[in-house]
């Protein structure tokens, strides 16, 4: 699963100065292997399909909230493909969970369960090394440092990779987590899909820093900017960061510059604030197109591919959705997962609820 890009521009070499890698050059991605590029494209298409399906399901009133990934598929897919799911942990924010196929087909069903408001949405059964969605911004960055520290203490080989938005970097938790990771030289990779927006707040209102990657200077480890529209570039940066982490050289902050193509969530109206020209310009570098062009340049483009991938994605999504809606819930289990054993008071409350359920649903 893990392929380290040969000859990465080693961020370590840059000490604590941020390194900017522009749109990845045309040489290295070829080295990634076209099979990998093809697989990433398939998964990005699948993520886009899932995102759109979920949007429609929300509009039909079948799920309460949709959280589109559109525009950031390359960040999630590119990053996750640079990991080894058997040892590396992923801590998503809330857009990534539909695009974690290397962590198992089951992850898609969990993502749908979560959006349905099903209690098992946060449960990735062991040994899947994926954390639940995170809603409380930036808190998961701290958890990732804990995971990385745990791996370090146990002498296990993996790393923790955490996703968080540009807006989340303003939270104190980001700074506390990153600072601690620097001190511990913890094997953690901080991946910020900089989609330029935090709901309606543009990056310039979020920070005066020259870039998100620059913030790594405050914590004593490398920060890099990559083209988040290019899955190959993201993959390369994450692979390099992973190599650093595994070698004991500590964390890396990766700013993956992308753009939020759609609404923040289904509750949001982006026409109130997103400049249409800016959006249109960003869409010209749609990550699906960028990867397509790479494959064309390699002579590996097949016009039938996208349609086939979409068809496959739809089948997979619908199957996952059907499984998700069919999954039963046991309301009383609410009391079973708070503590290992319910307290006496919880047992009393559980009995009350059980009685209500008996009378209300005869």
């Amino acid at each position: 699963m893990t392929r380290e890009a040969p000859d990465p521009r080693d961020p370590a070499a840059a000490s604590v100065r941020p390194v900017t890698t522009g749109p990845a050059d045309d040489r290295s991605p070829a080295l990634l292997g076209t099979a990998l590029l093809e697989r990433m494209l398939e998964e990005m298409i699948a993520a886009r399909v899932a995102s759109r399906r979920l949007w429609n399901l929300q509009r039909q009133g079948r799920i309460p909230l949709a959280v589109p990934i559109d525009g950031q598929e390359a960040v999630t897919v590119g990053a996750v493909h640079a990991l080894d799911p058997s040892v590396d942990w992923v801590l998503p924010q809330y857009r990534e969970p539909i695009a974690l196929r290397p962590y198992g087909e089951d992850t898609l069903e969990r993502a749908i369960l979560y959006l349905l408001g099903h209690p098992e949405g946060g449960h990735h059964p062991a040994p899947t090394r994926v954390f639940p969605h995170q809603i409380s911004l930036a808190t998961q960055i701290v958890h990732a440092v804990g995971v990385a520290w745990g791996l370090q203490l146990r002498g296990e080989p993996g790393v923790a990779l955490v996703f968080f938005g540009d807006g989340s970097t303003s939270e104190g938790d980001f700074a506390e987590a990153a600072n601690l990771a620097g001190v511990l030289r913890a094997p953690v990779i901080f991946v910020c899909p900089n989609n330029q927006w935090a709901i309606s707040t543009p990056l310039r209102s979020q920070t005066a820093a020259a870039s998100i990657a620059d913030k790594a200077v405050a914590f004593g480890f490398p920060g890099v900017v990559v083209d988040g529209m290019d899955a190959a570039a993201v993959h390369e940066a994450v692979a390099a960061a992973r190599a650093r982490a595994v070698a004991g050289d500590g964390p890396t902050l990766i700013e993956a510059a992308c753009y939020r193509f759609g609404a923040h969530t289904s509750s949001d109206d982006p026409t109130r604030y997103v400049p249409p020209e800016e959006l249109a310009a960003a869409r010209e570098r749609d990550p699906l197109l960028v990867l397509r062009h790479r494959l064309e340049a390699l002579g590996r483009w097949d016009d039938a591919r996208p349609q086939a991938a979409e068809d496959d994605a739809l089948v997979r999504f619908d199957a996952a959705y059907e499984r998700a809606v069919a999954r039963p819930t046991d309301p009383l289990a609410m009391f079973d997962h708070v503590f290992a054993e319910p307290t006496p008071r919880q047992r009393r409350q559980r009995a009350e609820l059980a009685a209500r359920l008996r009378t209300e649903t005869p």
Partner: protein
Amino acid sequence: MVEAIREALHQEMERDDRVVVYGEDVAVNGGVFRATDGLLERFGPRRVVDMPISEAAIVGTTVGLAATGMAPVCEIQFLGFAHQAMHQLAGQVARLRYRSWGRFDAPITIRAPFGGGVRTPELHSDEIVGHFAAIPGLKVAVPATAADAKGLLTAAIRSPDPVLVCEPLRGYRLVRDDVPDGEHVVPLGQARRAREGDDVLIVAWSFMVELACRAADELAAEGIRASVLDLRTLVPLDVEAIVAGVERCGRVVVVQEAAETMGFASEVIATINDECLWSLEAPVVRVSGYDVPYPVGMLEDLYVPDVARIVAAVRRALEA
């Protein structure tokens, strides 16, 4: 209700140029619930400001603004995220006057919506108002009606003390009562009798008042006359109104969306114990969420009190 809030903000910004409004997505977007819509256009980008996502900074800057003579009105997008600012709220904002032994006034208002039953994601629904009522030096308003949302917010903004105004997000669109035009101030610390009756007293706040009233209406059909007391503010607590209600009815139900343990209902019961225990003809009945983290959408309706549970609790109080 959300219009009433907007109106209060407009009026107070108009009236007092010390007032600045800020928070996440409050300016250009007009707030995720549109509570601050139109303020940017009317009052400009100096007085209506979109903030970086940093709740401790949002809450903590009020201290400095107040010290320089401003009257900050900030928003925490959802009350659950006020925990990110707990140290600034409890240790600093609520103590500005006290730490400076009277040097600084603290005309600080913090607005935040909360409340369940509308399928929001985690931490958007949690009723944790009791966590803030536990902070000495902080006033806590919990309006139930649109008129009160306007009147209590106006009072909060004009108050020289820090006030946390917890707004029922379920009520933003759903609750639509008549709102007085123009200036409307509801003093902090005076409960409201939302329904009159002598058989049982239902104490509630925020959206639970709406449900308590519906329960009272349902009970009225059977000839049971329930009073509903809307506390309006938890701090200051209108102890007199509670005592009067207990003395009148003898039987009491307290309804809260909070988890049972250490929800504000416990303080209401402790207050009854202190002031008028022997007026009780039955133990007070608590209707609460359960002692579990606020559950996900598919389970939340079983957790948040509903009319049926309130009615059942009234029956228990009457039968005991």
